[in-house]
């Protein structure tokens, strides 16, 4: 309760109900250009995230303007609902779709850019022309209506005159929840596979259960691309990383031998000489 009241106090400070104070004018002329520029970001930003952030800016500015216009309740709701919920939802989806996605600048529909710009200008001209006719209206101000504080005033109107709309909006929210569920929720159709089942399946498949052996390490050749030798002295193909094998970058033991040459006989020579001709396992 305190916050809206406090905001209401700010509001009354800015606006002398109906007529605007100098403070409000300053605020407006500071914030309006910012809003328009931010909104234009929606039109011109290459990256979707930038567009989203500029919309957030517009929405927060709007909240400030609401407070200035004797609507502190709406100001709060604007921040909570729009900036807090709606735009966050947008950002979530952006993350899902790929945060760095950006529009290609090549226009696919011939002439669409000019048509769009022209229509936008036309629409703007018409709408501005229309609202300017309201310039002669004498503002009545909301002092009387906000006498019991703004939230109470709004609540009175909502719960008396528009209670039916409120009830119907309830079903709208149900629809929204149901809709999101329908389009995103996937029922589990197969039995859930637990750790035990996974382990059993692995054993049943008969593959290697332990970690794979490390690649070969020799005194003169310490490399990932040479297979290790098994206890029986044969090279273990699986010890070389799969990537190297696929790329064809592994070396055979024989190649290493050839490289090492005669000096390659270590202090503890192998019990059997390794020729490199052994069958690969």
């Amino acid at each position: 309760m305190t916050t809206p009241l406090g905001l209401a106090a700010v509001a009354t400070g800015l606006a002398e109900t109906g007529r605007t104070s100098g403070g409000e004018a300053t605020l407006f002329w500071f914030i309006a250009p910012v809003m328009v520029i931010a909104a234009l970001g929606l039109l011109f930003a290459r990256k979707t995230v930038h567009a989203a952030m500029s919309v957030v800016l517009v929405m927060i500015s709007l909240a400030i303007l609401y407070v200035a216009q004797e609507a502190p309740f709406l100001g709060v709701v604007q921040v909570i609902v729009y900036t807090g919920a709606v735009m966050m939802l947008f950002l979530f989806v952006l993350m899902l779709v790929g945060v760095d996605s950006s529009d290609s600048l090549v226009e696919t529909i011939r002439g669409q850019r000019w048509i769009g710009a022209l229509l936008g200008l036309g629409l703007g001209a018409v709408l501005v022309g229309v609202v300017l006719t309201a310039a002669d209206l004498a503002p009545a101000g909301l002092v009387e209506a906000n006498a019991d504080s703004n939230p109470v005033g709004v609540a009175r109107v909502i719960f008396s005159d528009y209670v039916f709309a409120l009830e119907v909006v309830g079903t709208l929210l149900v629809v929204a929840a149901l809709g999101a569920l329908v389009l995103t929720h996937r029922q589990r159709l197969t039995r859930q596979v637990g750790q035990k089942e996974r382990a059993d399946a692995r054993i049943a498949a008969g593959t290697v259960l332990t970690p794979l052996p490390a690649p070969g390490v020799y005194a003169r050749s310490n490399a990932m691309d040479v297979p290790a030798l098994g206890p029986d002295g044969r090279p273990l193909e699986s010890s070389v990383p799969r990537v190297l094998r696929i790329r064809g970058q592994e070396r055979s033991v024989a190649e290493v031998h050839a490289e090492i040459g005669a000096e390659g006989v270590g202090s503890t020579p192998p019990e059997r000489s390794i020729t490199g001709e052994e069958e690969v396992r």
Partner: protein
Amino acid sequence: MMTTALAALPLEAEGAVAAASASGAFSVAWLLIALPMLGAAVLLLAGRRSDAWGHWLGVLASGSAFVVGAVLWFAMMGLPADERVQDLHLFSWIPAGAFSLDAGLRVDPLSLAFVLLVTFVGTLIHVYSVAYMEHDTDRRRFFAYLNLFVAAMLLLVLADSYVLLFVGWEGVGLASYLLIGFWNHEMPNAVAAKKAFVANRVGDIGMIVAIGLMFATFGATDFSSVFGRAEGAGEGLLTATGLMLLLAATGKSAQFPLQSWLGDAMAGPTPVSALIHAATMVTAGVYLVVRSAPVYAGAPTALLVVAIVGAITLLFGAIVGCAKDDIKKTLAASTMSQIGYMMLAAGLGPIGYAFAIFHLLTHGFFKAGMFLGAGSVMHGMGDSVDMRRFGGLSRYMKVTWLTFAAGWLAIIGFPGLSGFWSKDKIIESAYAVADGEGWQPWVFGTVALVGAGITAFYMSRLFFMTFHGDKRWSDGHGEGPADGPVRHPHESPRLMTVPMAILAVGSVALGGILAFGDSFVTWLEPVTGHAEHHEPVLPIWLIMVLTFVLVIAGVFLAWRQYAAAPVAVVPPRGSVLTRAARKDLYQDDVNEALLMLPGQYLTRSLVYGDRQLVDGAATGLARVVAGSGEIVRRVQNGYVRSYASTMVAGIVALTAVVLAFQI
């Protein structure tokens, strides 16, 4: 020149009779439609169970409708002439605001004449079909469709408003497709049904637009209101309405330029050709024009167009008829030509209306008779329709030959027979049109006169080729040419010959009876109004002599070529005209070029962006079509942004317009 029709206006006023509310016998007029409709419903719903007796139920339904019609006729005879237009209100159909639409029937001399024709000829054809369709497993369904047709046709002629008439109009169309396509497992029949469908749709558009125009002009579509208010309406609107009605009539009556479907429609069973494509449905266009007389009274230009269309079709059909070797198609061409006569007569205005209907009635008899005769010949000749393989049948099918001869003499206008009375009157009236001034009487009169001569030629050709001359078929016992197909011609059963005989009697006598003391013209006066007699530009005796000479000449030519001389079984190449006539004077090609091709191009180009069209568009029309297709594609390109742009453009335009007017 145009003044005649206008001068006839006051005649309308004094001649035509205002409608009275139906009472007494006339209040059961709805039975006329209900009985055959009930028959159709029972036959369709009962299904196979009614196979055994269904056809007789169909005959009964049609016959009882005739009885009702006869009763009404007697009742009307008992009324003075000025009470003979009876309106029967059935129910309030669409009570919408200030304009309401009622369903009602109008029983008057005109509709009653049609009722008697339709039910009488219809019943005979039903009887005939019992035998003709005996071996068809779906005979019951066939009778259901026949009954449906009779009901729809009666609705068409009895309706008291254009909207209800349109219902009947569509109904006969529907029944006609069902019957043409009755054997629709055979492809050509389905194609024929399709052709008839398309031609009729073009006509329907005329009908819909005409109804819309009437509705917009008079605020009503029932005959009483429309005719009552037609006098006060502007000529332009009436002309437009008249032309649209004519378009409808050309579609239904196979008149130029929508005539092409009739020949192909002969693919249906022969009784259908007799009932629908000779006696009844195709005359609906003539009925429409005559019924709309008060509209045409204020639209002389439209009336003139009616006459021109009639004249063109008259010659067109006659020329085509000379070259066809298919007996049914020849008869179809002849039908086209004869309806051209009726249309011409209707186009002459008040002096011709009565004769149009007169000829329509006599034609209904003799043409139906000849179609049934043709069916009988086909029945005896293994369903063959090639006249070049007929010949000498008079010995084998005596009754058919005799009845056909009656029809033949009637149609060529042999003095004393039905056709003579009705056709000569039309020729006379054509020479008398427009007060006998200007080019009209000479042109229309001469066309009608020449048409009579050609009619005599091609009908005699048909008659001689079929019943006389050499046998061009083999009887399997060494008689006739060895290469000919083996046939066993035999007379048809009673059920078929009796209806033919009755129609033959009508062909001989009906004209004389109706012409006696101008009784039919007087009978129709409450509807068509009294027409002053106009002197033809030629003396009447001269016209009669000329007609007779031309007819005799036509018959003689045909006799020399097709009865006295051998007929080639393979059609000779023939002259340019013959070849053109065989191909229906290239009407299909013309239609294709005029109607089908642009349609195909339209579809193709708009949907697939036909390269050919875009690249090598030859005509301006094609370019326009291609252009609009391009626009459609560009706007409906599947891009959300473009759609949004359309919306914003609309919004900006709307708002800007409003604001502009505000300032």
